[in-house]
């Protein structure tokens, strides 16, 4: 049986509108202007037990709304969903014993207390006995390398450290399914890598399914086997990550800053120069990883001058989605 089954799920929010100014505020009090916003528009998909599935899309695509419906936080407007055999909005409490959630923008750890206190409280919330809770905390502390952080008030932890504690907390009750909403939001590159590694290892060790939302294609590459891309509340693409990479995540962007001024005709073989910022000694390039390997671009860039700083990134998700649309149109 699939871990998640979703059929024609929709969610419409009512939004109030008000023009600027006091008069408009008073008018809105008596005659509010309400319009409907369709956050999720009839999506259907399945996820197998133990699968690592990525949910990506730009801000406002409906990712978080879908995850919130699947956890039982929101009631859908219409459609069906079953998570581990439960209907989330009707059997929220039963379901909560079997799933773990992490919302990047909504920490569950108590801000003024050390993480160990929240973990102990969670033990009570999930009705584990004290010995079980202690043993599990020790296990998670080792897996997420947070042994030395557990007794520090959460407000004093860095964002990366805190997120590691957050994910550890969500696994306390050995859930079968982990729902992660933007777990890497706001983290630096190293912290992102750290948290991705820990999630991947734990998921493999305990056979936990992971449904992850992100607007960072990097999360997806590192963690997921399959991907669903949402745009304007609809599924625009679903396939294996390897296929997506082969067809759409083919280019990389490079930003380099040199110690000296960049020549106006700067060029690196195998790349396309997007921008030269002479006053900042910087240059922005794009290249196709299928034709030019990353190593050769790096070698050529360092040959061209003294590199002060360099960033390599994936193209923004919006570009990937535009490419998916373009291909769909061509096929049509």
């Amino acid at each position, binding site marked *: 049986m699939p871990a998640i089954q979703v059929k024609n799920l929709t969610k419409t929010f009512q939004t109030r509108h008000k023009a600027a100014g006091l008069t408009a505020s008073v008018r809105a009090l008596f005659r509010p202007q309400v319009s409907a916003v369709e956050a999720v528009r009839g999506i259907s998909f399945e996820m197998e037990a133990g699968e690592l599935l990525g949910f990506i899309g730009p801000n406002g695509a409906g990712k978080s709304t879908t995850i919130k419906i699947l956890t039982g936080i*929101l009631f859908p407007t219409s459609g069906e969903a079953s998570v581990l055999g439960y209907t989330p909005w009707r059997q929220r409490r039963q379901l909560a014993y079997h799933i773990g959630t992490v919302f990047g923008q909504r920490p569950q750890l108590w801000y003024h207390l050390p993480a160990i206190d929240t973990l102990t409280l969670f033990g009570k919330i999930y009705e584990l006995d004290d010995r079980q809770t202690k043993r599990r905390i020790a296990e998670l502390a080792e897996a997420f390398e947070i042994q030395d952080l557990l007794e520090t008030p959460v407000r004093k932890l860095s964002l990366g450290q805190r997120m590691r504690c957050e994910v550890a907390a969500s696994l306390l009750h050995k859930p079968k399914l982990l729902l992660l909403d933007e777990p890497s939001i706001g983290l630096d590159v190293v912290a992102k890598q750290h948290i991705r590694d820990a999630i991947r290892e734990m998921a493999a060790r305990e056979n936990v399914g992971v449904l992850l939302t992100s607007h960072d294609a990097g999360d997806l590459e590192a963690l997921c086997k399959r991907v669903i891309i949402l745009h304007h509340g609809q599924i625009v693409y679903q396939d294996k990550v390897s296929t997506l990479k082969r067809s759409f995540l083919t280019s990389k962007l490079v930003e380099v800053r040199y110690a000296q001024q960049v020549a106006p005709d700067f060029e690196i073989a195998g790349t396309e120069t997007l921008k030269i910022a002479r006053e900042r000694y910087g240059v922005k390039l794009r290249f196709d990883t299928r034709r030019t390997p990353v190593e050769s671009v790096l070698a050529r860039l360092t040959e061209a001058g003294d590199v002060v700083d360099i960033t390599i990134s994936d193209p923004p998700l919006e570009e990937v989605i535009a490419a998916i649309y373009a291909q769909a149109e061509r096929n049509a």
Partner: protein
Amino acid sequence: MRELNFLLSLWKTNLASAMEYRAAFLSQAIGMILNDGVYFLVWVLFFDRFKEVRGWELSDMFLVFGIAAGAFGLAGAFFGNAFNLAEIITGGRLDYYLSLPRSVLLHVLASRVVPSGFGDLLYGFLSYFASGQASWGGLGRFILAILLATAIFIAFLILVQSLAFWLGTGGTFTALAVNAIITFAIYPITLFNQAAKVVLFLIVPAAFLGAVPAGFVRAFSWPTLGSMALAAAGFLALALTLFHLGLRRYESGSAIQVEV
């Protein structure tokens, strides 16, 4: 039993969190005792001049004030979020509680300590002992009266603030409701006419926060106890129904938030 075990752990965590700022905690609690005392001084001066208002004396005022302060304090100390449920609803902060396997309402209410609540609660007992009507039996009735009054008070706060699910706002509404119920609770009920009394019993149940329990503390009576228990059960049932109806309309939110 399971819920009680969970509540005890939650209160322990709450208290630990509040104790991170011990000085603030103590000063708020002590400050509230002084604040209540100064507020009550007006009634002491008033009754010094008039002795009696339609059968009510200063000792009755001590009782009424003791119960209202006690119930207000107990709600704040153990169910502190009863005072900002509307903000939690409109700010999308129910997400946290909805993702855990506990009763949402109980969990959210008990997740905050209002330090000044302990001051109010203590003041309630001081006021009872100062009433000149203290006795062991009376103390037992006083505690029972506070418990029932707290249940009615919290139910009223839930009812008013659950409207936030429909209105989208609710902060100012809450302040108004709290002021209304407390103000009416600590006025001698004999001042009000029949129509006003209907409001005070059935709509803003201030009578159950002051006059009715005060009568019960003075002398045990099954009908009074029954009416308080009935009011508590009725208002709680209404509050739960409205809150859970509202939950279907809950819209969450994407604001960044923390559990303190």
